[in-house]
């Protein structure tokens, strides 16, 4: 119970301190911090409209955050979410175009999810495999794979797969209105949010309640120990990368199937990079990604209100995101060091005390 208190109190405290620092920054920038906080709240969570705005922006972040979080559990720092979104979205769009009208919409959407996940999984899995089997730094290779993905998308979208009707914004042919993912009930939130929550919960279960997840955590904790216990280290590392990439690939598929209806350069809108921030804030815990993505989605949603009501630049919310990021990372050093958050010494520890006292008597 007390351990849970610590894991909640420290990040919440870090966010609170970053809000105070942000208030100082706002004051220096010449605005009233209390009014700005009220506007952030109004723009992010102050009404049903604001909530829809926040949740729509949070949906892709949940999936792209997994692309960094899962490999991180195996000890890899992967920043290839953007590339996986692009490749996943592009391949899903191809499947949608080919199967449009051939299969019923439910099967088309299912195939798009599968192919999007597969493409994203292979993309990031390649970075994991290069790391494990060839010793290539996964951070660099996954970053460079982002550029390769964007270049391939540009090549196909401007070239052979271009819909001639899209003159000044080259895009592929549409996947067809029937194959689009709709909104949840009467809201304006598309079902991408549902995919995000389901995938986060499923991967949390996989990582926390199965031997596979335990194995990945052991590899992330100490590769040598994992090898000595006979764990299939390479397979675990590559699988974690494939699963993370698959999540980001689904994010790309949702951008195509719920928002654009075709693939174009709008796939490369920065969700992959925003997901890295979410993953670190959630300390790579798939279930914690859900609230953190909503928090970040809310901050992004409130940016517009800040710009319009207070004449602050868009970068203001980047400053807030940056402060939260740095303070959360710095606060990791506090685990186990704040006395009143520690569990009270259980009786089990008494023998240890005795053992320490015994040597004093011996020299006599």
């Amino acid at each position, binding site marked *: 119970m007390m351990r849970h208190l610590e894991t909640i109190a420290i990040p919440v405290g870090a966010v609170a301190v970053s809000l105070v620092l942000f208030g100082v920054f706002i004051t220096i920038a010449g605005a009233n911090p209390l009014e700005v906080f009220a506007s952030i709240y109004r723009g992010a969570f102050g*009404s049903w409209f604001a909530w829809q705005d926040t949740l729509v922006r949070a949906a892709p972040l949940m999936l792209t955050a997994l692309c960094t979080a899962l490999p991180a559990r195996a000890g890899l720092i992967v920043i290839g979410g953007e590339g996986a979104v692009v490749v996943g979205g592009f391949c899903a769009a191809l499947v949608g175009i080919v199967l449009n009208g051939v299969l019923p919409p439910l099967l088309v959407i299912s195939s798009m999810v599968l192919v999007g996940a597969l493409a994203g999984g292979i993309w990031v899995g390649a970075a994991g495999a290069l790391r494990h089997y060839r010793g290539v730094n996964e951070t660099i290779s996954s970053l460079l794979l982002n550029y390769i993905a*964007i270049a391939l998308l*540009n090549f196909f979208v401007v*070239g052979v797969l271009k819909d001639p009707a899209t003159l*000044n914004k080259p895009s592929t042919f549409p996947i067809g209105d029937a194959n689009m993912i709709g909104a949840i009930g009467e809201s304006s939130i598309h079902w991408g949010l549902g995919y995000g929550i389901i995938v986060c919960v499923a991967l949390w279960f996989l990582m926390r309640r199965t031997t596979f997840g335990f194995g990945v955590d052991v590899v992330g904790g100490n590769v040598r120990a994992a090898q000595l216990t006979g764990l299939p280290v390479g397979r675990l590392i590559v699988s974690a990368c494939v699963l993370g990439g698959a999540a980001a690939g689904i994010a790309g598929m949702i951008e195509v199937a719920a928002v654009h209806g075709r693939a174009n350069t709008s796939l490369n809108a920065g969700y992959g990079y925003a997901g890295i921030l979410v993953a670190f804030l959630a300390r790579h815990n798939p279930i914690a990604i859900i609230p953190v993505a909503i928090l970040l989605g809310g901050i*992004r949603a409130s940016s517009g209100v800040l710009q319009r009501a207070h004449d602050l630049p868009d970068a203001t919310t980047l400053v807030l995101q940056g402060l939260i990021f740095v303070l959360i990372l710095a606060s990791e050093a506090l685990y186990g060091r704040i006395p009143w958050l520690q569990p009270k010494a259980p009786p089990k520890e008494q023998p240890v005390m005795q053992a320490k006292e015994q040597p004093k008597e011996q020299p006599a």
Partner: protein
Amino acid sequence: MKRRTFLKGLASVGVMGAMGEFGISGAFAADKVKMGFIYVGPRDDYGYNQAHFEGKSAVAKQDWIKAFDEENVPETIEVIKTMESMINLDGAQVLFPTSFGYFPHILKIAEKYPKVMFLHCGGLYDASKHPKNVGSYFGYIDEPVYLSGIVAGHMSKTGKLGYIAAIPIPQVLRNINNFMIGARSVNPKATCNVVFTGGWANPVKEAESANSMVDQGIDVLTCHVDSPKVVVETAEKRGVMCCGYHTNQATLAPKGFLTGAEWNWSKVYADYAAMIKDGKTIPNLVRGGIKEGIVKSSPYGASVSEKAKKHADEVRAKFMDGSMVVYKGPIKDNKGAIVIPAGKEYKQTDIWLESMDWLVEGVVGTTKS
């Protein structure tokens, strides 16, 4: 117990927030024209977005206009949310989503808000397909680009020009061709190298391309990307001349800046505001060039010769009286095929020019990125 008080606190803040909302909207005078502007990049990019921001700032000075804006809005579902937020929270009557890729998103919500006018920059408005409260506006910026080409043709010593462009779409190809035809009207042997960077904001590639062009002996650079800042600054650093685009970049290159093609959005936005104030019907399609005041040239840089100025001013006068035709045969493409035979001419408004997929003779490069 504690959790309950916390929730109560939250609820009361929510009520206060809602009251604040009504308070603010009530405080705005009802007769003000409320205009919302949305940019895909930063307001101060020395380029496309800054040009729109300058237009917005100019109309915002009027006391009967309330103008507000939002920068860095991606061409995804986020722009839908931004537009709805401007309508619901700020009471926007007219929205200017200024990026080309916003158009499909506008069409998704326009029918839901019939009282709001959605005016899109560069969109392909089609009265038979699109709702009445959607419109589009754009300018023939290739006219001032042609004038830049004339100045570049006069000033270049090597006769080698360079064009750094984003992607090979008709709009971009038309600018490149106008620049080349303008330069060749001065120096028939002039050539223009083209590099497509593959994206609208790709500063690293823009700098690399600019440097490699200077290394090849090119002495006038220009560009068609969202922010010409990198190309113009690189040209200045390497001691070559440059022509600007979108807005005035003279301050970035005090020595080498020749002239540039600029948008004049302040006029367009002021016209729209006046129409709304007077209760006039807003036209769904607004187009125009130098004559209509939608585009203009940047003031000449200090180094531009009198001869070049005189020549460009003469052609500008022809654009003003409507007698100037750029696409007049015979015109060959850069593979040697005749695209416009002798005697044939395409006026500025000709729809054929809007699907351009070729580069004119003298341009070194292909339409593949």
